[in-house]
């Protein structure tokens, strides 16, 4: 039995300033924020960026409008901005050794700055779309499960899994401008 997390309740408590809402948000999304930050700014600075995301999110909690999307998507948007702030500051202070992109990323060589930007966009969109579509995409393309395995894990008909996957991947491609 998967519990629904009461997104409406969480959002309401968030804008009300209930500090439980911040702790809940941290539990739900700190792993994602930190993971995205690692990819974008590297492991050394990911902790700082994660802290800045949650501090600025809480300070600006009044600016969150539930009608514009789920809290998780809003937090990933903030992550994008704090990452950009961090990279601008780092560039300005010339802390980075000679590197064509001027960026220190976790996996040098194959992973580029554009990859991090698009990854953030993808995960923001996944948060916006929500479950079960989000879980289906992650189970298929991050964890390498087959469609029948996903159907079994989530207790959904196989056809539903396939159609969710097709539609959601299409929507994600549009989000990163790959819809040709």
């Amino acid at each position: 039995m998967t519990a629904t997390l009461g997104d409406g309740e969480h959002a309401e408590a968030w804008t009300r300033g209930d500090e439980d809402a911040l702790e809940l948000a941290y539990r739900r999304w700190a792993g994602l924020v930190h993971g995205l930050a690692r990819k974008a700014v590297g492991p050394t600075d990911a902790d700082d960026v994660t802290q800045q995301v949650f501090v600025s999110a809480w300070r600006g909690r009044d600016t969150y409008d539930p009608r514009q999307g789920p809290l998780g998507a809003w937090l990933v948007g903030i992550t994008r901005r704090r990452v950009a702030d961090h990279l601008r500051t780092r560039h300005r202070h010339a802390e980075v050794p000679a590197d064509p992109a001027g960026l220190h990323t976790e996996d040098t060589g194959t992973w580029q700055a554009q990859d991090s930007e698009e990854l953030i966009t993808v995960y923001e969109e996944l948060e916006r779309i929500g479950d079960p579509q989000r879980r289906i995409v992650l189970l298929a393309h991050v964890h390498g499960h087959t469609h029948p395995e996903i159907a079994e894990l989530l207790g959904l008909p196989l056809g539903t899994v396939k159609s969710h996957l097709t539609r959601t991947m299409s929507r994600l491609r549009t989000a990163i401008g790959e819809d040709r």
Partner: protein
Amino acid sequence: MSGDDRLVRLLREAGPLSSPPPPSVWDAVRTELGAQESSSASAPEPVDFAARAPATGRSTPRPGRPLALLLAAAAGAGLMYAVPALLDRDEDAQPQVLASGELTQVEGEAGLGSAEIVEREGAQLLVIDLDEELDSSEGYLEVWLLRPDVSGMLTLGVLDGSHGEYLLPPGTDVEAYPVVDISVERLDGDPTHSGVSLARGQVG
């Protein structure tokens, strides 16, 4: 990987993004907000955020705070994003052991350690404890739950060292996937099981 579009490659290369920050990050968030909140004119009652009592734990919901119930459920509900260890965990709280089994060599019967399914604050975890580290010289060790006839499998993550704890995806039926398997994998970007198992055990 020819034929895979950019989106698929992006998701696969980034891999699981569940990256729990060290506890110091949460501490820093609280500290920074604590100083802010106590000087804020907008809050009717200044909230001393930095002093949120760590000892209250999460085993009992605080009355009049419905979100506390969600907090208890959150550990298991955020698939692949959840920060597995509770932030202010009551260190004395004993996790409830739901099932356990011995891990043995796949080739031969030598005991290698134990596997346990525990419930901790509303979430199920698989806890691996090996007597000695396994040899992963060719790559890395990955932990799986398998169906008895190996017709299906769940990957839980990488084993680093002799101890590992893995949050089970919410809704996982351990009786359907009762076999714990530790395989040695190559860094080849192929998420499927290599077929080379070093240890197995039954927990369902």
